[in-house]
């Protein structure tokens, strides 16, 4: 059994529950902390672009399907997929050059979270423009980044630990 895949699925599911059950109910202004998105980025940073993209699209679809949601199915899937793919690729490039560290990971997460909201807005603007509201948009982007910073500080090390624990025993762990 591939424990790593199981661990990723469980990690994303827990993030999904925290997202709709906790993060959005804290009554924070403008946007809620995007737990699922940061979870996807945490996986991508560790496992690279291809897995990042696949996990991103799957998590995005789940996020669109999870009640309550009135948005189109697939809107977050695109944003999560692109962001997961690109951050995963950037991280593995940096690892090859031995430039990857914790702070870089957190930085990537913040930029990726802001990029995801921008992509999301773009997709909504094209397919579902009636829904597009841009009240406090810049402020929303800043908050999105700030929440991602806090979440990344916690979720990135947690997933890194999960990934180490669930690594196949007879194979040398890839850095």
């Amino acid at each position: 059994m591939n424990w790593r895949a199981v661990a990723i699925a469980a990690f994303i599911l827990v993030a999904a529950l925290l997202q709709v059950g906790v993060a959005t109910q804290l009554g924070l202004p403008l946007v809620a902390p995007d737990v699922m998105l940061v979870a996807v980025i945490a996986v991508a940073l560790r496992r690279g672009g291809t897995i990042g993209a696949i996990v991103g699209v799957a998590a995005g679809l789940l996020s669109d399907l999870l009640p309550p949601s009135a948005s189109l199915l697939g809107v977050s899937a695109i944003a999560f997929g692109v962001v997961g793919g690109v951050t995963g690729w950037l991280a593995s490039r940096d690892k090859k050059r031995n430039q990857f560290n914790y702070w870089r990971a957190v930085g990537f997460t913040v930029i990726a979270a802001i990029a995801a909201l921008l992509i999301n807005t773009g997709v909504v603007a094209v397919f579902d423009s009636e829904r597009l509201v841009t009240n406090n948009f810049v402020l929303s982007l800043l908050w999105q980044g700030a929440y991602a910073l806090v979440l990344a500080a916690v979720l990135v090390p947690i997933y890194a630990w999960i990934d180490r624990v669930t690594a196949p025993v007879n194979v040398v762990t890839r850095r």
Partner: protein
Amino acid sequence: MRDTRGLRVVLSILIVVTLTLIVLDLRGTGSGITTSLRQVVATAFSPVQVGVAGVTSSTRNWFESIGELQGASTRADALQVENDRLESLVIVSGEDRRRAQELDELLLQSRYLERQIVPARVIAIGPTQRFSWSISLDAGTRDGVSADQSVVTGKGLVGRTIRVSPWSAEVLLLTDPTSSIGARITGSGEIGFVKGTGLSDELEFDLLDPFAPMKVGDRVLTWGSDEGKPFLAGIPVGEVVRVSGTPGQLTRRATVRPFANLSSIDLVGVVIDTPRSTPRQPL
């Protein structure tokens, strides 16, 4: 660029699949594949969400009392904190009282509307990053809830149900940008449409008659839809807080603050249909 080839291929395939889904969902009516997918996920997740919602509210109470414990440097402070803690205990027990009061208000609302109301608790709130303003309730088809029914609090309208699974329902809040509600000003009876803006305390109200009088403090009620779906007539929506546009312009627009506090809703009621069985008395 050779190392990114696999990634590019995977990413393009995934994006194409996702775009297909978006278009399917966009064109989907009633019983499309995306609707059944949503149904399955809603049925599977709602019991877990009920559990998580319970934990969240008790954790929030705990954190609030911890917050009050900090800053106890002197004895006076400590006593103050102790006092605050006891007060917070009162508040926690008051939480139950608040629920009871909300329930009472709902009961009044139900008498006023002369319809049956199914009480329900909010179990999840949708993330606004997705540009949708919606909530989940812990009541579903088994409780008599169906799609396109009005959802109210004791104070006023909250929104309408859009999707219902056996034990849960999704509600489109009136703050959602796609929400548009036929509404009328009390007193003058002038009609218009209330639209969501994505802000929890502001709605847009467009009067149909540009010359009709409208002033700050005017109250707005739903005018109702055919057979009460999705909105019944006479549900309080909100109060005019700002009027923009002068008489004579094509439409007059006002900002309306909803009566229901949408940023902290907990207990709501779904107005379920009870068709009229006794004929109306002629005057």
